[in-house]
């Protein structure tokens, strides 16, 4: 009986291609939309966390001040003595790079480009996972004397030099001329969307003397040794800085210590919320697809009721008719679900390539939307049929 009924169901699908196609279409679009959105969202989250780890692992950033906006606590900038104190008194740290950020316009021949100037030391490159693609980093003498030398990022090279090799050329920044001694390997966009390669790095002392005109240090980048607890280092750092900055026992810190893990958590939670939003929007389309199926099933119910009447009249049992309709609904919705999954896989791989994020297969969402679509198809395909099959054959036959 099962085999016969399966044949009947398949025959009925083949015979009503348009109706079957429309039934499937709603499911296909719904399933594909949900899976694609969630997959791309997961890819974006992955890409953000990848970029964060490209900033350098085990990285701590110390900044003066607490909180932004209203209620912000200003804090005095750090000085070179703070850097020395951290370097000599805190156990478990690999590097400490003092950083000063300024904005200035760099000029080379007829080209000019406004960019961020970072004053730091060679340690900055190492802590931030920067590689030098051409030329060299700073020498100790250059760092100590504050010589006018710089290492530039790929974007700055592009804007000022085009494809030319910049090493050895002189660029003008504000009132002074500066020799390009190195070129950084491109890193691409940061997780916050800014261009990490739009940068000119000079020795700390050069920036302090020629651009900011004071001894202030904007922040400290600290790389913690492998295997050392970041939390322990943070604690030591906080104690040391509170002491050096004379903060009373009941006063809040006037500086912040952040680690890359913390930054990563903040950012990935943002993209995760976005993923959920996109998924919710797509789920609505799956629901609309389900309503489409319901419509088609209900519209065809008159014809189907007569068909059921004919089948009952020539001797089909109620359960045979129902089984046929159930199989029809299951086959159609599963087929729709499978096509949807296939379409979503194709679209996700294509779109992930287009917006440059990794493609991650998510079995949960694939299974979930497949099951949901199958359930919709079965419910809306089966229940109208169940009502019709319960009629007296003559009433089903006379159904208008």
């Amino acid at each position, binding site marked *: 009986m099962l085999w016969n009924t399966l044949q009947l169901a398949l025959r009925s699908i083949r015979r009503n291609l348009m109706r079957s196609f429309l039934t499937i279409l709603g499911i296909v679009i719904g399933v594909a939309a949900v899976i694609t959105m969630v997959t791309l969202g997961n890819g974006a989250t992955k890409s953000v966390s990848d970029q964060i780890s490209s900033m350098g692992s085990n990285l701590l950033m110390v900044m003066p001040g607490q909180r932004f906006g209203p209620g912000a606590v200003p804090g005095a900038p750090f000085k070179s003595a703070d850097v020395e104190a951290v370097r000599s008194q805190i156990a478990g740290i690999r590097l400490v790079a003092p950083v000063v950020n300024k904005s200035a316009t760099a000029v080379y021949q007829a080209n000019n480009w406004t960019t961020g100037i970072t004053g730091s030391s060679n340690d900055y490159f190492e802590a931030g996972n920067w590689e030098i693609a051409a030329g060299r980093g700073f020498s100790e003498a250059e760092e100590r004397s504050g010589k006018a030398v710089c290492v530039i990022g790929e974007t700055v090279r592009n804007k000022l030099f085009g494809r030319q090799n910049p090493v050895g050329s002189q660029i003008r920044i504000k009132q002074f001329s500066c020799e390009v001694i190195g070129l950084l390997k491109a890193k691409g966009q940061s997780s916050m969307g800014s261009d990490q390669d739009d940068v000119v790095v000079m020795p700390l002392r050069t920036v302090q003397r020629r651009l900011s005109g004071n001894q202030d240090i904007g922040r400290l980048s600290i790389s913690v040794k492998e295997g050392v607890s970041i939390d322990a280092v943070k604690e030591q750092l906080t104690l040391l800085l509170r002491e050096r900055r004379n903060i009373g026992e009941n006063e809040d810190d006037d500086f912040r210590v952040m680690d890359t893990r913390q930054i990563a958590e903040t950012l990935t939670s943002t993209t995760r919320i976005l993923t959920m939003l996109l998924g919710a929007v797509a789920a609505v389309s799956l629901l609309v697809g389900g309503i489409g199926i319901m419509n088609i099933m209900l519209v065809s119910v008159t014809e189907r009721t007569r068909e059921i009447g004919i089948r009952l009249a020539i001797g089909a049992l109620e359960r045979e008719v129902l089984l046929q309709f159930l199989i029809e609904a299951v086959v159609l919705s599963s087929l729709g679900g499978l096509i949807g999954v296939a379409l979503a896989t194709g679209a996700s791989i294509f779109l992930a390539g287009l917006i440059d994020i990794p493609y991650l297969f998510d079995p949960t969402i694939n299974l979930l939307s497949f099951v949901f679509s199958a359930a919709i198809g079965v419910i809306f395909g089966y229940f109208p049929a169940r009502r019709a099959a319960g009629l007296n054959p*003559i009433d089903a036959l006379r159904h208008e």
Partner: protein
Amino acid sequence: MSDAVLIRLSGITKTYGSGQAAFQALKGIDLTIEAGDFVAIMGPSGSGKSTAMNILGCLDVATSGSYEFEGVKVEQLTRNERALLRRNYLGFVFQGFNLLARTTALENVELPLIYRGEPAAERHAAARAALKQVGLEGWDHHTPAELSGGQQQRVAIARAIVTRPHVLLADEPTGNLDSHTSQEIMNLISGFNRESGITVLMVTHEPEMAAYAKRVVRFVDGRVDSDRRNGEDV
């Protein structure tokens, strides 16, 4: 003619609706039909002839009274048992043909055999033979939309007789056909009655069609008004 009683109706009533709106379509029918007979049921609209036909075909159930089919009390059967009775003993021909749309003639004729669980090869052979018997050889793969009314009714007859039923029930089988086609259909039906001994019950309001039958039962107002054999004097 065999005198074996095939069908015995006694005191059959059928009421539609309830309370004030109740309408009694059959007011107590007593009727006995022998195997091999060809009975035409006639009567004006609303006389209850189609209602009686639906009850005889187990497509509907009577409100009261007793219906014996080959000694089995139909009112005691379950829904599924009535379906099995239709499957194994009855064949139907309707005024509106009632073929499955977008389905070939062959598949339509095969349908009752599928429910009987016959193997595919035998099913095909039987369906082709039935189509040949109704004069539709070579029309196997045409769908109802590609067939004329007369041809559709032939497919319906083939579907009804493919299971070799004991009784062929025809409800206004020529109601939608012109007079020439009607005669062809009637010749087919009376041929099956004559040659295969299938008992035929046919509802009609046309005296020309009733003339093919051996016995004419006339309904008026939910009761049997007259019952005579063709050829006898009134």
